[in-house]
């Protein structure tokens, strides 16, 4: 269960890659994870998106997990030692145990800057102001800025597990003709704007 190999090695060795995602109830995090699993499928990978259900409410922190593998996935547990972390709301960063995230992995954060707690950690951080992008594109529901699709772009940029094309295909497929364009645009813009830095 622990990090036996680093991410680069894992990819080379065809080992499974695991990701933790943290978001707020109502922000579509679970949908995002599902779309990512679909994008990975287009990539030819086997993928799993596991929402951690509890009594999540709108605004409360919600975890989800992702797995990607070149072989069929036979593991069903939550992810304990992820390679990467996807943080849809910077204020939730303290909800995940960063020490359990692979040192060589990427932490993708909806933020303009490296959060205090990570500064000087030497970690690879992918940063994007997804909230702004989403707001600009009008991705708002009942006062809630929907950053889920946007952050997928950042994830793809930060981890390169799936291609942007396949991500866009998955988004398009999920949202359907009418609603896809805005969401694809959000992912694309995030992809472009994401900066990968070493903290």
């Amino acid at each position, binding site marked *: 269960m622990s990090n036996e190999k680093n991410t680069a090695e894992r990819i080379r060795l065809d080992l499974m890659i695991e990701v933790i995602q943290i978001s707020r109830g109502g922000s579509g995090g679970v949908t995002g994870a599902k779309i990512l699993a679909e994008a990975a499928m287009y990539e030819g990978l086997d993928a799993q998106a596991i929402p951690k259900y*509890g*009594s999540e*409410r*709108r*605004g409360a922190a919600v975890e989800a997990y992702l797995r990607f593998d070149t072989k069929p996935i036979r593991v069903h547990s939550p992810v304990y030692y992820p390679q990467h972390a996807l943080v849809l709301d910077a204020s939730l960063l303290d909800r995940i145990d960063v020490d359990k995230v692979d040192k060589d992995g990427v932490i993708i954060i909806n933020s303009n800057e490296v959060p205090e707690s990570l500064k000087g950690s030497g970690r690879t951080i992918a940063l994007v102001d997804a909230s702004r992008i989403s707001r600009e594109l009008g991705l708002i529901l*009942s*006062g809630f800025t929907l950053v889920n699709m946007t952050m997928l772009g950042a994830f793809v940029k930060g981890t390169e597990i799936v291609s942007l094309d396949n991500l866009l295909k998955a988004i398009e497929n999920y949202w359907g003709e009418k609603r896809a364009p805005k969401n694809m645009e959000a992912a694309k813009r995030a992809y472009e704007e994401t900066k990968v830095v070493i903290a």
Partner: protein
Amino acid sequence: MPVTQKDLMKTPKKALLKGHFACAGCGSALAFRHAIGSIADEVILVVPASCASVYQGSGKGVAFNVPTVNTAFAASDAVASGISRAMKKKGKSNLKVVVWGGDGSAADIGIATEIGACDRQENILHVMYSNNVYGNTGGQRSGDTMIGARTTTTPEGNTTPRKMVPFIMMANNARYVATASAAYLEDFVGKFKKALSLDGFKFIQIDISCPPNWRCESAHSVKISRLGVQTGIWPLFEWDRMTNNVVLSTPSKKYEVVENRVPITEWTSLQGRFRGITEEEIKALKTDTERQWNFIRKFL
């Protein structure tokens, strides 16, 4: 015994501790806070499966600061009967046994249990808080879903009228029946306390708004509830077995007259569950509302 806002401030203790699991803007938690709060030192709560079984908390503890028994979905009025009888046997009839549950248990799966307890004239009060939907499981149609509402099991709009459990309880000879709204809390708490002062089976349905399932802004929660009354969609009244008469409650009096009512669309337009509602559906909803008023009028 009219209850004022001042009275609401004088509770024996807080019934609902802060930091509970209800969604932001939950009308059920709001109603709970005041009603159960008003008798928090002498109440025993029975809670069937519902949002109330979730928002009370989990894991470390509970936000309900009164004795609470969680029961199977259809079991609560029978459990309450057992408690009430046991307390009688123990000489503790002063304690109030209250079922606090949703429309799912009260209108659907548990209505036989409820009618049974009513039939036996058990000394309990059933408060059915209705968000017109199975909230806890993610918003499926309940028997109390109104015409036109989009739910996850009626994605194209519900076609059947509301069940109107209060009418059923009147027909079933309850001791006291009332309807209430989370927008009129003094009215609600007044009815709640009145009910508890009477012996036998009492029933109150309170409509509460539910932001995630009504797909509305949480800030509009109380406003939508108020509009429910002002549009006439939800008539507030009391019925007493002793008189077999309905008394319209002050907030609703004016709206018996159709002309006085706020247009129904002011209410629907704030709620995503009515997005895409058709003219016919609106008409059917109005007709069914009038049916309810007609039933009530028979008892005025």
